[in-house]
């Protein structure tokens, strides 16, 4: 978000309002708070000091606040893109620009996505223009089953993207993980279990304290801890360890349950194996990614209290681990009591992050289809706002218009889950964001094809 004094104390960070944050009220709009409830017409949203003060009917604009007429508009929290690669590449297919995976790296769990973020990537600008305000960003498992440490970011037009660095670790225990690990799921599980044991031991020996292993937040004023990998206290390690010291240190907070472990698994059997990890490592804070066959294991997932970041509309047997894929997967998991967000949208094809709204709308469409299980409109919006924020550890603070929440919000020209709608104004931390980008500039240049006076190159 907006530039701020990074040298300030924790307390100062907590209290600091973002520079240029506006106090304003949006009146007479259709408002959805993102918490799963249905939208409310003729409502008002009040923002002060970068936070939501109130949202709903019976709320009035405070005296002196800028008033934005929301007649005919919709207002929702900004979209939270869960588990994406926004900011890690400029062009997927241009390897020089692409930091989405580190296929030849000697490191694995220690990889830190926040080191590679580029707020000027057009993917970021395009997503922001369409109302995506936050994201959890990850590096794809490639050389190892571990992808490394993901970050929670904002998409504001300023140099600092990180909301929380080292927000989660990611591991692939599906078909891809099995191939990476040596050719079998057996190897992937052995690698993971060995890694967690090494980390457990390493954390104890190195006397890495629980508090210091806690991932830092730069956005919400929690203390910024010392990175345990930089504390200079070596520990002796046995000669047969597989992990580098750097990777082992990165997994210490995972095995202690201080950093969530996101696990890729699609097949119902794979999902059940993931849930069993808790028997050996009871403190693991698990999140399932993908889970195309989650509906076949929904009761077990719900009982384990493990949230899911699901692929939204998978309905094809893309692999033998997704034979039972159906668009009703998310609705059925919801019915079983599983907390589900939509995620893993990335790149510039059909699954680009800005199409998450369309996918959520499709889940609503299922409610009108005999035999299918869909979501209510409010639930569908929640899968791309409050639920992913909650899974990322920011429940009540991001992805919602609850009083006191960060003022990430969007004014839409219509129903945001409808394909014809688009963002008209995007606010992050209460700051109105620019929405121009490479695409909008091209659109303006080629509005007409007239070159009677000068070449198009002079039209800018």
């Amino acid at each position: 978000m907006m530039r701020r004094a990074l040298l300030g104390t924790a307390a100062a960070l907590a209290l600091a309002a973002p520079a240029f944050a506006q106090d304003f009220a949006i009146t007479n709009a259709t408002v959805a708070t993102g918490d799963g409830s249905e939208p409310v017409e003729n409502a008002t949203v009040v923002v002060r000091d970068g936070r939501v003060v109130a949202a709903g009917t019976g709320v009035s604009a405070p005296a002196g606040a800028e008033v934005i007429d929301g007649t005919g508009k919709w207002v929702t929290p900004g979209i939270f893109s869960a588990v994406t690669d926004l900011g890690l590449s400029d062009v997927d297919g241009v390897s020089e620009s692409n930091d989405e995976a580190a296929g030849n790296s000697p490191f694995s769990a220690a990889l830190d996505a926040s080191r590679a973020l580029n707020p000027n990537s057009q993917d970021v600008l395009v997503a922001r223009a369409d109302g995506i305000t936050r994201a959890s960003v990850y590096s794809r498992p490639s050389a190892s089953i571990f992808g490394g440490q993901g970050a929670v970011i904002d998409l504001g037009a300023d140099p600092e993207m990180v909301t929380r660095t080292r927000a989660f670790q990611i591991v692939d225990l599906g078909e891809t993980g099995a191939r990476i690990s040596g050719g079998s799921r057996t190897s992937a599980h052995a690698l993971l279990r060995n890694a967690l044991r090494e980390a457990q031991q390493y954390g104890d020996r190195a006397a890495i304290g629980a508090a210091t292993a806690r991932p830092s937040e730069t956005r919400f004023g929690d203390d910024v801890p010392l990175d345990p990998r930089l504390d200079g206290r070596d520990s002796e390690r046995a000669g047969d360890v597989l992990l580098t010291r750097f990777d082992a240190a990165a997994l210490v907070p995972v095995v202690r349950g201080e950093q969530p472990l996101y696990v890729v698994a699609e097949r119902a059997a794979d999902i059940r194996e993931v849930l069993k990890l808790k028997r050996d490592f009871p403190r693991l804070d698990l999140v399932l990614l993908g889970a195309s066959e989650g509906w076949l294991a929904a009761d077990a997932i719900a009982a384990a209290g493990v949230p899911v970041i699901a692929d939204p509309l998978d309905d094809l047997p893309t692999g033998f681990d997704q034979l039972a894929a159906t668009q009703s997967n998310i609705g059925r998991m919801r019915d079983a009591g599983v907390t589900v967000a939509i995620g893993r949208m990335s790149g510039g094809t059909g699954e680009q992050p800005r199409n998450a709204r369309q996918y959520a709308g499709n889940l609503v469409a299922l409610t009108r289809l005999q035999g299918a299980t869909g979501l209510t409109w409010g639930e569908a919006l929640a899968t791309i706002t409050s639920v992913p924020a909650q899974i990322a550890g920011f429940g009540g603070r991001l992805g919602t218009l609850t009083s006191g929440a960060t003022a990430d919000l969007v004014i839409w020209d219509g129903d945001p889950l409808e394909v014809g709608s688009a963002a008209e104004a995007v606010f992050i931390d209460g700051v109105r964001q620019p929405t121009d980008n490479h695409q909008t500039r091209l659109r303006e240049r080629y509005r007409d094809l007239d070159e009677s006076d000068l070449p198009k190159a002079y039209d800018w």
Partner: protein
Amino acid sequence: MLVRSLATFGCAIALGACSTMGGGDASRSAASSPSSASAADGPYASTYERFPGRPTALVGATVYDGAGQRFDNATVLFRDGEVVEVGQGLATDGYDVIDGSGKFVTPGVIDIHSHLGDYPTPSVQAHSDGNEATSPTTPEVWAEHSVWPQDPGFSRALANGGVTALQILPGSANLTGGRSVTLKNVASRTVQGMKFPGAPYGMKMACGENPKRVYGGRGRMPSTRMGNFAVNRQMWLDAKAYAAGNRSRRDLAKETLAGVLDGDILIHNHCYRADEMALVMDMAKEMGYKVTAFHHAVEAYKIGDLLRENDVCSAVWADWYGFKMESYDGIPENASLLWKAGACVVIHSDDENGIQRLNQEAAKAQAAGRRMGLDIPDAEVIGWITLNPARAMGIDAMTGSLEPGKMADVVLWNGDPLSVYSRPEKVWVDGALLYDALDRKRRPVSDFELGQPGEGDVK
């Protein structure tokens, strides 16, 4: 399952499709595209025959006819596999009446760019049959020889996307990838049983990054864009020499290329950048063939005037961009700007998921135009996924719109097809009801899915 009644329907009634007859239905066969290169003739001929259907009247729906017209509270009549009439207040005697109030009717959706069957799911290496990436020019290969009719993707395209016809293209690894095949989206044990009767063949070409990357990476020509053109031009020169001769020596590659030069086989050219499309159009002029459609064409909006003047369609996505260098300038207004320039617009998928939502993609493209002041009527936008692709595939005399005498390829939507909240409720192909959301057994389930978790699920 369906029982095919050959005695009643088959060849006797209105089906130019019958392999055993030269044209039992005069109007249908007259409408067919050039026969010498159509899928109905020659080897591997279509054996598709329409399935039995009931005379059906869809009453009270909003109808987009695919040809740019909208009818409110209208009636659509079809029987014997053909559209009879569309209009208001039509008599429905002798028809099964289906209440369409609050619902919408369109022609069957047509995808001009699909790899279903050639790159089927499950997407395992053993199923990778879409690119004969062993030589940069392979006009001798035919996509139909790779199609696996049991690809579960066909059923999803039907049930979720209302797709009734689609063109299966070879991939874009090669400059010249081979012949395409146009299919009816009707489940069959054989690809011949899916082949669209009377549809002309297409030939896939590709410019830009893919061919030069694939072959340059092996130290072979082409490794550059200029290499792409040199290889293509020499291919055409050789083909012209062959075509000018007596053609007595069988040569699979040259036969396809000669078919293009004769105007019987339509060129579908994968191309992203505006400058390259302009060069390809000049290559076509130099060598004496026509480009029917550029596919992907993310920069088509930069040369809408050229495309209009050359009468070349652009088959585009609504919003794909930036996944490779040559797609960096993709913008959501591409389709609308082409429409503004008076050029032909087709929305395509190139994707087993996107094919399930071509209606939504068209709506997104329309909305992007609306936001920049281009107000494109809904009825025209439906044409982007029906009649326009039919034209570019050479099957528009047979399908693509709800005009009397055309194939009764029809979708009844449970709401506005340009809304995210709508899905097909019923889909007819040649008047046969092949998907019904209200009848769980009236949906195709491929062999592959039998006995698997989720068999027959709503998907």
